[in-house]
């Protein structure tokens, strides 16, 4: 039996005192090593779900387990996030005044990794994503695809077990987007990571093991990418 990377039961996230139900009664289990696409129309709750699973936000109600840890009011989210989770954002969110290698070092600072080790690990990760010749380039000097590669290397900095991506190809042209997805799948296979991507791109979703569809804050479809969608809901 494989390990469970993410488990959520009856997850709810309300805003404005309950007037806005961004996420309503969502239950989901993601096995370690799985690749999952979260799809749905804009405003359906994809990013809210990602924020909760990525420990960037706390649910209004429901239970959540991440990498075997039950999340409750006493859980040190910062520490768990730093150790177990890597994030990739649509707009890469690199710090423009820092070089590529310094950006990759940032998550390691959260775990107080020694300077020398930080630098060595960051350089190795950048080499791993094909940017060994861009270590000291600042993000404005890099192409869109290169920036997102730096962002991938940064997400891997603390050797996480789960990688979350919020539209990681959303700001890239199709060729660069394809390269980034190739890279993510290759890294996931090599490192045995769990990969959860929010995407609007059906092609990206198709390349994941599993596709979870949200509508109005609820899961309306959950199927392996090869299988027919049991809900019959057309792709966005």
């Amino acid at each position, binding site marked *: 039996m494989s390990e469970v990377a993410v488990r959520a039961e009856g997850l709810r996230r309300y805003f404005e005192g309950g007037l806005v139900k961004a996420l309503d009664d969502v239950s989901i289990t993601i096995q370690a090593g799985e690749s999952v696409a979260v799809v749905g129309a804009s405003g359906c709750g994809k990013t809210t779900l990602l*924020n909760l699973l990525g420990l*960037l*936000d706390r649910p209004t109600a429901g239970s959540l387990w991440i990498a075997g840890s039950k999340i409750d009011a006493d859980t040190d989210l910062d520490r768990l996030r730093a150790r177990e989770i890597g994030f990739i954002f649509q707009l890469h*969110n690199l*710090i423009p005044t*820092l070089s590529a290698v310094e950006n990759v070092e940032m998550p390691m600072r*959260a775990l107080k990794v020694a300077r020398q080790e930080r630098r060595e690990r960051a350089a190795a990760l950048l080499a791993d994503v094909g940017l060994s010749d861009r270590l000291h380039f600042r993000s404005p000097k890099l192409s869109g695809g290169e920036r997102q590669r730096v962002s991938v290397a940064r997400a891997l900095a603390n050797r996480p077990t789960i990688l979350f991506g919020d539209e990681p190809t959303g700001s890239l042209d199709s060729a660069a987007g394809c390269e980034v997805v190739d890279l993510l799948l290759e890294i996931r296979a090599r490192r045995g990571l769990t990969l959860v991507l929010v995407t609007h791109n059906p092609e990206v979703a198709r390349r994941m093991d599993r596709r979870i569809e949200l509508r109005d804050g609820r899961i309306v479809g959950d199927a392996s990418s090869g299988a027919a969608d049991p809900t019959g809901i057309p792709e966005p």
Partner: protein
Amino acid sequence: MRLALRNLSRRPARTSLSILGVGVGVAAIVAFTAMGEGFKVSIDKYGEQSGADLILVEEKAGDPAFGRILGEEMEELRLNPAVRAVSGSIVMPASMPDRATPLLVAGRNPDEDLIRTYLNPALRGRLLETEEEAMLGEIAAEELGLGVGDELEILRLRFRVVGVYSTAVRWENGGAVIHAQVLREQLSMPPGSVMVAFVYLKDPDDLPLVTLGLQARFPHLRVLPTAFLASSFEQLAYIDSFIWVISLAALLVGAIGVLNTMLMSVSERTREIGTLRALGWRAGMVLRLILAEGLITSVLGGMLGSVLGLVAAEVLMNLVPQGLLAAHYSWPVFARGMTIAVVLGLFGALYPAWRASRLSPAEALRYE
């Protein structure tokens, strides 16, 4: 710290202006404190170079220049068995037609010990001997373009300059010395009276006993060991208060500058702060980063302000003729400036840092 420096360098114009804001505040503090200290040091040197053991001033006169010690009291002091000699001082500002500010004229009796203050190797010419003679301080002589043998016209009287002196007291070097009797007549003071009495003891070891004795005998006078002359100037307390008011104003203005800069910076970098939180940075790390940026701004502002303050004090001293102002640069002057800079930097950065650290990562990442 390195990241904080990088962040500050992102907006060089705004960071520079913020540093300048802190710098100007600190410069005001440094300049005024240095000049206040300079005034105190000048007074202490004035007392010290007189060679006297005790100084007597009128108790109720806030400034010794407004005090009077009568001729009879001077005579009684001279007759005290523990006293070797007594000298008197009178000071009066004398307006001059070609000068914006008056010349500070001191009255000295040529027969008294106090005149020897000017008898040092720097003296050109000789000490004054008669009521028709005058001595000029070296700064005043240069400003007036006069030297030994020239004629000085002040108080509607003409004096022959017989000496040009230099002492350790800047404002004395910017003034003139004439016979005490001439000033006494100008000020309609009673015969033999003075503004300040300088007492020379036969045995300096008698100082505590004589001080107590004289204080009991002359309760309306303040009897001070020479080293405490500065304490008889009530204006010094006002100067200190003025410096503190300036310091507080600078603190407020500088803190608002840093606060504004850091608030803008935090607001612009909300998504970045959200990213750092998403990468595992704790709220405390974000707080320290913003505080470090405020601290760097204020320390650089403090350093700039120290230099600007020094320059400002020198410029002010040269703007005012006669060497009326003297600046004294000691490490506490700069320490005060730097301390205030650091306090205002931390104070100004505290709220933005707190705000940044309180941002929810999810909200911060949503920020447009």
